[in-house]
């Protein structure tokens, strides 16, 4: 069993978190939960300040890169949100952040998330995998065609498409859910490993 106070503290906090499921919501669980959020926020603030120091303040003060004053002022303007008479100034910075993000995102979004992915579904029907991909793409897309109701001429043979599409979507969501459950189990395994190896010393895994 570990003799390190750090490990004991971490084990206590882990068990405090487990107490929600195994016992019920309690003060120890809430304290551990709040500590987790507080530590995360504190760490993010410190890393953020270090990032500003390295990429903004130090080059400005030590290297005389005065152009960096502009982004630093824009950054400070974000905090005017808390000063009512000049709170509108924060919108200027926010608009630059949003516009830059949108512009950069659009640079590759059409190709990465539309053209390349659609063209990847144009496959020769020479294997079961390809057949499933092409069929899934066609019927999956048909499920989202809302320009015309599946009535009249579209009813009948074509009406099967969105129904089949819904099945494909359900299978895809099922696969996502299966993976999600696997991910959550992995988190539990991580904490269980910490308890049996690092705290109790029952495992020699490295």
């Amino acid at each position, binding site marked *: 069993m570990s003799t390190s106070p750090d490990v004991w503290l971490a084990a206590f906090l882990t068990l405090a978190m487990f107490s929600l499921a195994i016992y019920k919501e309690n003060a120890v669980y809430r304290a551990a939960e709040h500590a987790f959020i507080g530590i995360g926020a504190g760490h993010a603030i410190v890393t953020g300040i270090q990032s500003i120091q390295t990429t903004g303040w130090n080059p400005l003060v030590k290297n005389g890169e005065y152009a960096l004053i502009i982004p630093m002022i824009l950054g400070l303007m974000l905090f005017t949100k808390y000063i009512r008479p000049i709170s509108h100034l924060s919108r200027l910075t926010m608009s630059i952040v949003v516009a830059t993000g949108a512009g950069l995102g659009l640079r590759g979004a059409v190709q990465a998330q539309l053209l390349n*992915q659609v063209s990847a579904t144009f496959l020769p029907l020479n294997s079961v995998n390809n057949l499933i991909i092409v069929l899934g793409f066609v019927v999956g897309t048909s499920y989202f065609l809302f320009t015309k109701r599946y009535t009249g001429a579209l009813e009948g043979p074509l009406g099967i498409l969105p129904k089949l599409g819904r099945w494909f979507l359900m299978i895809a969501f099922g696969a996502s859910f299966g993976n999600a459950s*696997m991910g959550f189990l992995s988190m*539990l395994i991580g904490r269980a490993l910490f*308890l049996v190896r690092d705290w109790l010393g029952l495992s020699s895994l490295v």
Partner: protein
Amino acid sequence: MKSINPKIIYVLILLVIAIPLIRPFGLPMMVMKPTHDFFAVVDKIRPGDTVMMSWDYAAGSDVELGPVANSLLTHLSEKGAKIIAVSSIPDGPMFAEASLKVLEGLGKVYGEDYVNLGFFAGGESGIAAWADDFKSVFRADWRKTPVDQIPVMKGIEKAQDFALVISMNTGPGGYGVPDAWVRQIHVAEKVPLALAVTAIMGPQTQPYLQSGQIQGLLIGLRSAAEYEKCLEKPGIATAQMDAQSAAHAVILILIALGNISYLLDRKAKNKGASV
């Protein structure tokens, strides 16, 4: 069965997970094609090539992506690659530091063979910024040494100077999401990109592999264990997959028992109603 206390199930799952972690079963495992392909991409790295690895995950995903990082570092080190570690989320550099100890253990020298440049702000904007001008974003490493004084950084000016970029990514909660890496590194810079993502992110990242926009994809703990198998160095992920399989077996048994109990109940009710 219907009246079973869920807390008993939680404790049962915890116990079932703990046993293989104490004494691994060594269950057989098949290596899937995406893991083979990822392994082949890393295997093509030549000695002296520089590879960027980005630790885009926090504590919650360390159990899935930590073993991936360790295996990749071992493999890249065997190939003689130089490693540049970065992170698009504030917590990432801590996990990078922990993983980079693998290289220390393999006799690699910090600054000459690898470096941890720490966190870069801005998410997608940050990626685009260093992809065009690396030193405008990274001026010093995580230990505050100016990049100009770090030998491994010599000749690194932009994204095209990397033989491969790997993002170990936790997904939408992060700042530099997989989509952003694909848009900025594959589409805009035409640099080979590979992703290692958490199991939850798997299905939505797979189309990028299918469309050839990423060179390799590792999904969750399962891929980490498969990569260890490819390396012929079974480790922590392999043991954790035993725990994963054991937990899944118990869950499947509980689902089957729950359904049998439900059907028997219904049959008894129908019988009661007909009498």
